[in-house]
């Protein structure tokens, strides 16, 4: 052994141990080690007690899942609760192209379920993207069959699709939503805030098989969108729509609209426009189809405005229903312009001015009135004002400030030229005659309180006097005998206005009729407007009045309103010449 000669010490006898270390060194070491432990304890305390949110969250995220609970958009229903728009869940199918490696048979199978071309599908699946939608809004039953194929990289999402069972009939009123469930038109837009649902959420613990095992934390309940009950009566809406459609094709007209109002509550019971569209299939839509003409388009109303001029004349005491106005020789020159009657009349009473629809008569009465009073009256009945329905695109119409009126303009406004209104404004304005002189506020939604009250425009006596005149206008000798309805007393006024084209009046017309029934206790106001009738007839009494009669009679029957006139034997239709249709 190499160490043989050396003296072997035992460890305990090591002379090193005999050496004394300075005390401060061992103390320092002791303190350092103690300090490190202190730091570790401090850190542990900080992480686990003071600032534990982060780690807690990390831990929970291993087992806890937040699930969104979807809420559906509210329904839109008519006044009887019949559904006009409803959301039902659909599925969208997506793929992650990198993961979705399908065999050709699988591709064909999937393509046939998706009703797609197999080659197109293969192309989508080989795209250089991380995510592609294969098809959106497919029925849940088909989606279940796709899920049953258990293809890799193919997934599904739940989404909602909006259906409109009444289709084109109520398209303008109800409107529609976009893909992301935002209201884009009509009531869908006007009541978007109420229709929209608030999705809820819950956090849960899921087990390995993906089943929910436990709720943790609080659940935020989803809020489904509210159901909107419109004032619309889908039966009356259908009647209005189908009669309008018929009249448009009979008269070869460009467009048209019908508005039906409830006199007592101001509810819009029906509102139909032509042309229209199918909200369930909105490909190839044009702006002309989308426009809700009755609300967003203005036109010169023509003679339908005469009753307002006359009513103001009566109200201010300038004329009485039997005051004689000399309308001979059927023309009146103011400045360098001439107002003419379509058929010259002699001396007419004020009532006959309405009955025969004399422009000259109306202009002469207007000349007795101050322009400020006339403007105020137009303003009071809602012309030149937004109807305040909250409907997208409502228009104010155009009534120029009275200070800039020239005498000729005041005269033409008396019979509805040089002023523009929308059909809904016109229908509403007639409520001052159908009621006892007050203007009813309109409502899109169902009104359950019985009587709405509006601002008074005319005295009850004036309203009743005008009502009598309006009833004369639809009787024989008036301009619109075709507006008569057997069994009911009807009152109304025709309008036939030339259309302005490039600043000049062209040989195109807007025919209109506004009226109400039954006269003894008015229930409904119906306003009809036909744009550019071009099948030979263009007078309001010939074109619009029959639509009014058809819509009004069937609506009154639908509502079960008691007849207030003896049922006369149907009059033999007179040849068109004998029917005294005037401007």
């Amino acid at each position: 052994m190499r160490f043989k000669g050396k003296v072997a010490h035992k460890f305990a006898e090591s002379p090193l141990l005999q050496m004394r270390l300075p005390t401060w060194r061992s103390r320092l070491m002791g303190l350092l080690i103690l300090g490190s432990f202190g730091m570790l304890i401090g850190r542990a305390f900080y992480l686990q007690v003071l600032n534990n949110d982060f780690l807690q969250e990390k831990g929970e995220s291993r087992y806890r899942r937040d699930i969104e609970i979807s809420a559906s958009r509210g329904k839109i229903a008519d006044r009887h609760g019949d559904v006009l728009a409803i959301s039902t869940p659909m599925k969208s199918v997506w793929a992650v192209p990198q993961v979705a490696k399908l065999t050709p048979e699988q591709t064909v199978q999937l393509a046939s379920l998706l009703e797609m071309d197999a080659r197109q599908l293969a192309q989508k699946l080989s795209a250089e993207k991380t995510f592609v939608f294969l098809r959106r809004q497919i029925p849940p039953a088909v989606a279940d069959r796709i899920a049953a194929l258990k293809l890799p990289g193919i997934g599904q999402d739940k989404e909602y699709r909006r259906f409109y069972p009444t289709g084109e009939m109520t398209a303008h009123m109800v409107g529609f939503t976009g893909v992301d469930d935002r209201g884009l038109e009509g009531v869908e837009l006007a009541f978007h805030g109420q229709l929209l649902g608030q999705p809820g959420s819950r956090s849960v613990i899921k087990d390995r098989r993906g089943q929910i095992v436990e709720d943790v934390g609080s659940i935020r309940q989803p809020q489904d969108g509210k159901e909107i009950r419109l004032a619309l009566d889908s039966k009356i809406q259908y009647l209005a729509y189908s009669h309008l459609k018929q009249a448009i094709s009979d008269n070869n007209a460009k467009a048209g609209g019908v508005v039906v109002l409830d006199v007592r509550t101001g509810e819009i019971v029906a509102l139909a426009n032509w042309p229209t569209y199918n909200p369930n299939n909105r490909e190839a839509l044009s702006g002309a189809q989308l426009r809700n003409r009755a609300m967003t388009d203005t036109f010169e109303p023509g003679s339908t405005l005469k009753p307002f001029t006359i009513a103001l004349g009566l109200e201010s005491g300038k004329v009485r229903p039997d005051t004689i106005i000399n309308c001979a020789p059927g023309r009146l020159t103011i400045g360098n312009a001439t107002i003419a009657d379509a058929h010259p009349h002699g001396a007419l009473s004020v009532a006959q001015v309405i009955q025969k629809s004399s422009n000259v008569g109306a202009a002469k009465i207007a000349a007795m009135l101050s322009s400020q009073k006339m403007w105020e009256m137009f303003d009071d009945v809602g012309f030149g004002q937004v109807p305040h329905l909250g409907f997208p695109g409502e228009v104010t119409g155009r009534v120029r400030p009275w200070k800039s009126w020239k005498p000729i303009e005041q005269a033409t406004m008396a019979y509805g030229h040089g002023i523009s209104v929308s059909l809904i404004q016109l229908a509403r304005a007639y409520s001052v005659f159908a009621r006892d002189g007050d203007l009813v506020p309109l409502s899109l939604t169902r009104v359950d309180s019985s009587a709405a009250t509006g601002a008074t425009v005319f005295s009850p006596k004036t309203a009743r006097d005008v009502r009598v005149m309006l009833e004369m206008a639809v009787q024989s000798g008036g301009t619109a005998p075709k507006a008569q309805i057997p069994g009911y007393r009807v009152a109304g006024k025709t309008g036939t206005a030339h259309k302005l084209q490039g600043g000049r009046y062209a040989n195109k017309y807007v025919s209109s009729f506004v009226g109400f029934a039954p006269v003894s206790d008015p229930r409904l106001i119906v306003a009809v407007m036909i744009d550019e009738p071009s099948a030979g007839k263009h007078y309001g009494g010939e074109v619009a009045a029959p639509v009014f009669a058809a819509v009004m009679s069937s609506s009154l029957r639908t509502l079960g309103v008691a007849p207030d006139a003896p049922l006369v034997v149907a009059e033999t239709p007179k040849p068109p010449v004998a029917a005294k249709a005037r401007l």
Partner: protein
Amino acid sequence: MVRLNVILLFALVLCSLGVVTAQHKARKIFQALEAEQEHARQLEVEFGQLQLELSTWGAAPRIEKIAREKLKMNTPETGRVITSASTGGASR
């Protein structure tokens, strides 16, 4: 002393088993609740679809078409309508 410890040990084991069973039962019941809620949602969806169907089948244009074409009905002409006088009852 030993006897007390043994008794306490048994009590502890029993309690632990109890907790395990209770937890298991709770999860079972919770899953059943979950399934029922899912069923309720399904029924709601189905209700919506049926309402949609009702509206589609009961649409006025369809009724009129069937009445006119299949059942050969038509609106009575004015001369053929007789209106009875109101009996004083609710006419609305």
